[in-house]
């Protein structure tokens, strides 16, 4: 693998950049691998990367139906934070956030992790209490967050309207080391590093069946032929249900559309990520200058990657009220992705009824920020059979009634 | 009894249409088997009207009846008579499985009138309001921007709009914005 650096770019410039090699190889599949990961999104590639890096398992294939990083990895709003309330969530998201800090150096690929700070606005008494609770929990979980005043909010976000007629800003939960990263680069960086370890990333290859013997996975059938493996990781987000069916079990997941949009680019005007949950909107500004805005999910199953426009309207009007100046910005592009939702809206990282087969899915609307931690934990689970990071996210929690519910504001009442 | 006061006490606004809060209207929610003869008689006695068909409203002035759902009617009577009518109705229905409750104070009623009235409503409700599609005699329960509401037409240029009392202020402001001068759409 050719090392990336400013020096390398300068050297290549002299020959008009004709000397750059492929960032990842494009191999034909081998007959057999120690482990196969299905799905070359961020989570799948990170899983493969840490299998190799942490456990020396490098005879690995990552099989991808389309193009690597072409699913939700490249469709999200790139927010990275770990200010979650419940212990298991805080653990895996903080692990991920920590890994993001050094990921550019680790991968020798600039994924542009920008710890610009993530702010969650409190706009009701109920939210104040909720976020104060979160900040207490975070302190004990080793997640650095703090409660900040409206004055500090305004200092950090000069374009915010603190005194909206409907919901004044009463304060915020602030995670200074939260931020954003370049989403595509995360997938590309992991892919390049995996390829450099000798792993095969096989794009345009669809898994059509999961083969097993005596309750144990032995391989997969694909559009490029049968491939044997000892271990199988299914990391395919919205398509988890289909893969699980091939492997002979069912998952408590539903696929629904989640939307996002960007404005036209403008000069820097907002240096942090702001989430306003009462009015359902969140926004950050990309390095290109676009305001990146997250929308809501539909309430119904949908595989079209198109959501319903009224969710865009709801989000935009909320943000126009919170940041009045965006009224005179324009929406450049809106898009949708298919997210897989579980019964408690937390992910599943688990062994499955099929021995040797593991599942990583159900990330719902929050997957991007977890990628390194998810890959780390999933690799540990696949390599050793156990990971403290993933333990709570096992499939059996639904049967036991042991949920990981982050939406703790279920009942608002007086 | 003290003088009853409607949510906005007859507030009004004039733009591309006239928006007025109508004051108190006697209203009874009646749930039951709409094909039941006893129920039909109770409706007739209270309003002089038959049981309306699907999405039909039969109303004269402040008396009438509107179809709300397959097992629900909205009975309109003068506000002063609502308790008496309700008592009569409850008596008449005592042997049947039905529910009649006074909701007069739980609602606010607006009139939106003028040549552009259809357009004003067309800005806030996801409903086709062309003259071919919507006429007097029909009721539509829908959404008024962000709150639930129902409306029908008293005549070709006048809508009667009903919403929850707590949302009266919102709906009035909403209709004001929709009726702001210079905002004619020019399609209806």
């Amino acid at each position, binding site marked *: 693998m050719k090392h990336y650096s400013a020096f390398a770019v300068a050297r290549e*410039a002299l020959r008009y950049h004709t000397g*750059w090699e492929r*960032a990842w190889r494009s191999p034909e599949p081998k007959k057999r691998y120690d482990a196969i990961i299905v799905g070359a999104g961020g989570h799948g590639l990170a899983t493969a990367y840490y299998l190799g890096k942490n456990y020396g398992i490098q005879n690995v294939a990552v099989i991808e139906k389309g*193009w690597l990083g*072409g699913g939700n990895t*490249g469709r999200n709003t790139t927010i990275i934070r770990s200010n979650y309330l419940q212990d298991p969530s805080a653990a895996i998201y903080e692990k991920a956030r920590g890994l993001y800090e050094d990921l550019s150096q680790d991968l020798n*690929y*600039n994924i542009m992790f920008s710890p610009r700070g993530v702010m969650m606005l409190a706009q009701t*008494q109920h939210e104040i209490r909720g976020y104060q609770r*979160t900040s*207490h929990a975070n302190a*004990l*979980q080793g997640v650095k967050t703090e409660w900040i005043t409206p004055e500090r909010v305004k200092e950090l976000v000069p*374009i915010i309207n603190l005194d909206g*007629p*409907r*919901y004044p800003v009463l304060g915020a939960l602030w995670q200074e080391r939260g931020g954003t990263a370049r989403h*595509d680069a995360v997938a590309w960086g992991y892919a390049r590093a995996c390829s450099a370890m000798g792993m095969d990333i096989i794009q345009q290859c669809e898994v059509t069946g999961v083969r097993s013997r005596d309750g144990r996975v032995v391989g997969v059938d694909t559009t490029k032929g049968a491939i044997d493996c000892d271990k199988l990781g299914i990391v395919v987000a919205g398509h988890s249900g289909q893969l699980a069916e091939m492997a002979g079990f069912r998952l408590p997941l539903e696929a629904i559309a989640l939307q996002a949009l960007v*404005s036209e*680019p*403008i000069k*820097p005007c907002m240096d942090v990520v702001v989430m306003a949950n009462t009015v359902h909107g969140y926004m950050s500004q990309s390095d290109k200058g676009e305001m990146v805005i997250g929308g809501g999910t539909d309430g119904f199953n949908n595989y*079209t990657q198109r959501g319903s*426009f009224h969710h865009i*309207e709801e989000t935009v*009007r909320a*943000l*126009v*009220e919170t940041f009045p100046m965006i*009224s*005179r*910005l324009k929406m450049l592009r809106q898009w949708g992705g298919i997210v897989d939702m579980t019964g408690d809206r937390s992910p599943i990282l688990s062994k499955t009824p099929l021995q040797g087969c593991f599942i990583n899915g159900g990330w719902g609307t929050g997957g991007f920020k977890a990628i390194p931690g998810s890959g780390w934990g999933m690799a540990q689970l696949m390599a050793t059979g156990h990971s403290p990071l993933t333990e709570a996210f096992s499939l059996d929690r639904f049967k*036991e*009634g042991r949920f990981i519910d982050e939406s*703790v504001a*279920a*009942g*608002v*009442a*007086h | *009894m*003290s*003088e009853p006061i409607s949510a906005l006490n007859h507030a009004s606004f004039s733009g591309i249409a006239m928006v007025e809060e109508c004051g108190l209207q006697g209203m009874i929610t009646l749930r039951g088997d709409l094909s039941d003869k006893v129920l039909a008689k109770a409706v007739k006695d209270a309003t002089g009207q038959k049981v309306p068909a699907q999405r039909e409203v039969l109303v004269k002035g402040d008396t009438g009846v509107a179809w709300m759902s397959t097992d629900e009617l909205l009975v309109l009577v003068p506000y002063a008579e609502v308790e008496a009518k309700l008592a009569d109705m409850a008596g008449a229905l005592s042997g049947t*499985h039905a529910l009649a409750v006074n909701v007069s*104070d739980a609602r606010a009623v607006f009139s939106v009138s003028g040549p552009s009235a259809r357009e004003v409503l067309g*800005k806030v409700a*996801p409903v*086709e309001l062309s003259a071919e599609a919507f006429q007097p005699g029909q009721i539509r329960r829908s959404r008024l*921007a962000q*709150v639930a509401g129902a409306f029908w037409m008293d005549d070709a240029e006048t809508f009667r709009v009903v919403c929850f*009392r*707590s*949302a009266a202020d*919102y709906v009035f*402001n909403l209709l004001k*914005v*929709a009726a702001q*001068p*210079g905002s004619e759409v020019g*399609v209806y």
Partner: protein
Amino acid sequence: MSTRLAKQGRLIDRSKKVTFTFNGTSMQGYEGDTLASALLANDQMMMGRSFKYHRPRGVVASGAEEPNALVGLGQGNRFEPNQRATTTEVFNGLTATSQNHWPNLEFDIGAVNTALARFLPAGFYYKTFIHPKPFWKHVYEPIIRRSAGLGKAPDKDNRDADTYEHFYAFTDVLVVGGGVAGLQAAKAAAQSGAKVLLIEQTAHWGGRAPVDGGTVNGEPVDKFVEQLVSELETMGNVTMRSRCMGAGIYDHGYVLGYERLSDHTPGVQGPRHRLWRIRAKQVVTATGAIERSLSFAGNDVPGVMLASAMRDYVVNWGVTPGDRVIVATNNDDAYRTAITLKQAGVDVLRIVDARATAGPLAEEARQLGIRVDPGKAIAKVKGGKRVKKVAICNQEGVGGAREEVEADAVAMSGGWSPVVHLWSHCGGKLIWDEAHAHFRPDPDRPPLGADGKGFVLAAGSSNGPLALADVLKDADAAGKAAGKAVGHTPKRTKAPVGETTAEAPMEAVWLMPANADIQLRMKSWLDFQNDVKVSDVQLAAREGYESVEHTKRYTTLGMATDQGKLSNINGLAILADALESEIPKVGTTTFRPPYTPISMGAIGGEARGDVFQPIRRTPMHNWHDKNGADWEPVGHWRRTYAYVRPGESVHDAVNREVKNTRENLGLLDASTLGKLIVKGPDAGKFLDMMYTNMMSTLKVGKCRYGLMCSENGFLIDDGVVARIDEDTWLCHTTTGGAERIHGHMEEWLQTEWWDWKVYVANVTEQYAQVAVVGPNARKVLEKLGGMDVSKEVLPFMEWRDGKIGAFDCRAYRISFSGELSYEIAVPASQGQAFWDALIEAGKEFGVMPYGTECLHILRAEKGFIMIGDETDGTVIPQDLGLHWALSKKKDDYLGKRAHSRSHMADPERWKLVGLETVDGSVLPDGAYAVGEGVNANGQRNMIGRVTSTYYSANLGKGIAMGLIKHGPDRMGEIVEFPGTDDKIYKAKIVDPIFFDKDGEKQNV
């Protein structure tokens, strides 16, 4: 130079001068000018700077596809960045400023990037800025961010001065695009009897056909357009809107129309934009085609322009972009530009045609004295801020043997691409048309509607045909097909017959010259705004970013504000070539709405300020407001947090209310509590399923506190249920719960137990409900007179109908405070009068209204739980010591099965206790109790948390409730709660009832 011609300009009114400013310089144009045409008339060719290299850029197009000429428009709270000069109509007083430069347009420091361009190829930032680590956030990123972005942010201190609205429209057939195709399709559809809505993004009908010329039925095109428009205007079933763009097509025939009402007349009455939410049974997209640029070195120098755009400027606005023009093309259509220019008196130096042969238009050009060079190409355009010289070479080859010609403008045409955006938004598929080298809609794979059938038809050049005759035939057929699809019978009319000069086939030319060397390719722009060049796409392919999505994202091709309208096909072709693949195999990126950017204001519509969201008000809202209410939003309701008197802090007010209610008399507006009537022979059985308690056995006249769980076992609501008569119950819900619980009940009745005879009605807002609370509660009611509210006649947990004073009411003897307490419901229309009467009569008893915080403290002093505080969606009744409310006599109720799952029956669950700090201070909200050690993830082990915490003025100390592991078994023990202020709070586990443990105060 670019200048106004003496003649021509079909869209401008030369009798009406318009004055505007650009970068502070006053300029003149005419009514009908776009900002771009007016700037060109003032010889302002350079209009902006590019995104990455800050290169000087001039206008390249004449319409929505313009990538370069973006300006900041307006001032103050009407300033808007990134407006296309080509679609901005000029008006008196317009102020425009160019973008993305410092200190000014002419001299921009950022242009140093252009010199460094060789070191800044596609994706260079992924390979660099990696070390040292902190530099990305603090050094590199800020520099990149300041360099990127385009326009300035709008005014942050003042709200947008304009208003916006939405409109719901319904039509049989929606025709998007008012060019000849759209007009003809609309007519054909309307003649079938279908209701037609026709929308056009510009202010003019007819599209570009009047510029391109030709005849229809023997008449000039503009005559035909005029007639067609007036015909449509008289048809009762046709609605026409100009300045209204089809922004996006969504599922089930939903289309967004973006109408710009007053962008050209700012400040007039009425909304600025109107977002049409159109439901159409059939949509005809007659959105035309966009000319492609040619990829040659220096094709981004100001003065290089699309051939069709140059023609537009001459014909529509009487402006020529240059005096000495070179035309470069791979098709016949560009000859029309040469001819138009020549006829307008502009010097056309030569036509450089990459093909060997051209059609009859070439002959026409030659006869006008224009030199035509077949098989030639532009090797390079020279000049910085303006075209100076053009080097011409052979198309075949690497670009050697050049001849240099002095020129000040270049018209280029790489062929035409249908505007397939709207077709594609909702899943319509495309096919590659080899003859025209473009993607066009695949009629066999249209977007599918609710009925599974196609609901979009493409018409005219957006469907592929480019010649006028074919366009009209195609549009006529599409209009008829649309009419038929919505159930009408199209008239058997003939399509109008268009005639234009025949054209020879175009030849795909993706690079000029065909084998241009790397130096040339590094100067051949694909995406003008984002500075993506041929060499960048080739680099992406070489590095393995092979998918079109990879290439797009790696190079940013097509990601600018024009979303690749000019660049996408050219980029695809380069990519396909680099991959040694074919264009259709490489495929396109996804077309997403909107077609061109639409304002956030329009998307938000009317929902801002007062009507941003509904605020629900109780009948006594205005009184509260006048009497110091510190408001608290609860769902959409507004409730009073506390009534703050002059000179008091909110905290003071709360403490005063708390003491007064316990000592004298408090009034609470409880109108927001939900009230549901449940009636029927099966109502008792039904409520037994809804509540964990037994409700069927409640006696008429009595009340019972009830709990509701979800099927998952978690607490979702609570409230007092009153039995009204043999088959009627009244259920109180929490403030946020009325609609939710009403829906919950209806759901079970309609979808599970539909044979049960039960009706539910939500009567929440029929009543104003006032809690009259405190030792003097009975006294004030007795003073008002009326019904007997004595202990004997109205004991605790009973209700009676009657009169209090002049008011018909229902009085409930219930208490959420532990005080003697009545909740009195009167009709909402009399709520204010009743409240006034209580305030007046209560004066001698020390009456004070109290708010929600006081309510909270009073209930916490009594250890009563609050849904939303003690519960959070993960708490079950057993956690809260509410076992007594879980009926053991019932076989079933919602949540019962769930409670027997292992985790819910786990004795380790955290349980409700009272907490008192050792020093009397107030525990922090949301604090967690810590145990020994850390868990496997290194997190401190937690053993509980605070659910409610207050200062109790009555007790003079902090009190709290919390959930603690084994809590009820650990009474008297001290647990530690680390604060976020670095303090450790020590609290003793106590009984949660802090005040009047035996309930003596409420039972009087």
